[in-house]
């Protein structure tokens, strides 16, 4: 599996798309220096908002470009035959591709976090009085959970990747899942209120309950607002959220591997 992971890593870091996304993210990170000036008190919060959003958005863009094409390209250009004619099983292929992707994201996140930290250090020294609620640990906590989110999202991309050979269809499915996953907790919250119970048909409410367990709760990994205000989660919550992300990804990948094992590669 190692050869596959390293090849996938190379695919990522040698892709021109990745560097376009890097440039964009770095641009947003530097934009935070300008935008922070528009605010009065919580400059640290605004700076963190910008930096975290840049990293998070870069993660989404990489997923939507690189990850979505990863398996589709192999299937479309028949590289898959070349790969699978080696002693690499299909299960190994799915996991190898996934872990390879994670190494690409790890690389991207480390790089972007490093750059954003430099910007934050600068801003913090410049406006030391207005970084009251800022907390480095909280900042890294948000980046960490964003990485967990990417981990889950990419397991879903791999899953759709083995189902459909079209990267566009994969993208549509993934975006839908992402949007649903981001808003599901709001929707559930809405249902639980009296207003929601009145206006929703019972069947719809039940459907949403089912979706709740299928679609990942991406909002669980959104620690941007919380971290921007310097709040930290407890160790047990930290572990719990991490575990949720890992377990979900593993389930999705196992399903993907099962489907891929049966797939006809004619």
């Amino acid at each position, binding site marked *: 599996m190692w050869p596959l992971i390293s090849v996938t890593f*190379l695919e990522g870091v040698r892709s021109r798309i990745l560097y376009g996304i890097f440039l964009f993210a770095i641009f947003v990170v530097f934009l935070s220096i300008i935008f922070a000036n528009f605010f009065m008190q919580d400059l640290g919060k605004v700076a963190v908002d910008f930096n975290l959003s840049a990293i998070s958005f870069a993660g989404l863009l990489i997923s939507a470009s690189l990850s979505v094409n990863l398996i589709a390209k192999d299937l479309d250009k028949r*590289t898959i*035959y*070349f790969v*699978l004619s*080696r002693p*690499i099983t299909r299960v190994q292929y799915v996991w190898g591709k996934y872990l390879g992707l994670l190494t690409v994201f790890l690389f991207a996140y480390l790089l972007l976090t490093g750059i954003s930290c430099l910007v934050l250090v600068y801003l913090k020294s410049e406006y030391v009085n207005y970084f009251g609620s800022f907390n480095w640990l909280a900042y890294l906590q948000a980046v960490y959970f964003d990485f967990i989110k990417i981990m889950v999202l990419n397991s879903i991309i791999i899953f759709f990747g083995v189902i459909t050979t079209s990267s566009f269809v994969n993208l549509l499915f993934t975006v839908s899942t992402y949007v649903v996953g981001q808003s599901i907790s709001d929707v559930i919250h809405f249902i639980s209120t009296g207003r929601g119970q009145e206006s929703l048909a019972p069947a719809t409410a039940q459907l949403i309950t089912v979706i709740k367990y299928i679609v990942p709760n991406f909002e669980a990994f959104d620690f941007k607002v919380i971290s921007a205000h310097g709040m930290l989660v407890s160790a047990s919550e930290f572990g719990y959220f991490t575990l949720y992300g890992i377990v979900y990804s593993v389930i999705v990948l196992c399903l993907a591997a099962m489907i891929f094992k049966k797939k*006809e590669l*004619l």
Partner: protein
Amino acid sequence: MITVEKLVKTVKKKQLLPSRKTILNDVSFRVQEGKVISIIGQNGAGKSTVIKSILGFTQPDSGTLNLRAGTTLGYLPENPYYYDYLTLRELLWFSASSFGMKKVDFPEKAKAAVEQVGMQAELGNRLRTFSKGMTQRAGIAAAIVHDPDLLIFDEPMSGLDPVGRQMVFDLISGLRDRGKTILFCSHVLSDVERLCDEVIIMHAGEVRRHLTREDLVLAQKETEILVPLSAQVKQILTTAEYRFKTFTEHLSLYVETDKINQTLDFLRRKEIPVVNVQSSAVTLEKIFYDVVADKEESCGL
């Protein structure tokens, strides 16, 4: 080394009313160790499907497929595309390391592989910069770098210029001389004829012929006798159970060389004029065309 028995494969046709299409029908053959075997056939005859079944890319509906345990395999896909962001060296390392090659052994093996395809100078270059022929040769290098026992090449000659083609030809005969088992598909019948110990002709998902080298040699010992075309002549020849082929103006009669006189006598007796007598080059090409035209009965092998 490979035993294929009664392989059947159907696929769903994506139509308004889904139906199943048979793409492999009762395919059986055996590849013996150290032999060079070629599968030839038209596009869609099922060659690639057979190879993909052997490699496990697709599951047959029924039948068995056996690959001798412990066989290491090198495969060159048809119209290959490799990760073009890799250098040739990285591609070879991917291939070799997935077969468990150690890092210390790699440089030497890689050098040997690229020398065989004449790409020594390209080791450090990205595949992105390669032409189609170079990509093909890079693929061959990736297939042989770990020194496999069995090589499966899908259209190894495609996309190559005459020089490249000769190179692949020499490569395959070199591998044969080193005792490797080689299974390949090709459209270049003259190469197949010169290289192969056995030839499998597939048509419409079936194995129509399985020729050995002896069959091919034998086939060349036939003589072709041309006679004018008419319904009456056709009738006479059919009754006499001669093998013949109908052309626009004449009929070609195929007889074994030692039976020429006997046949000429017969024709004279029946007052059928002989237009020409020539040594029949019932080469592979001819056999192939006959099979494709579904004229099994007219060509005697």
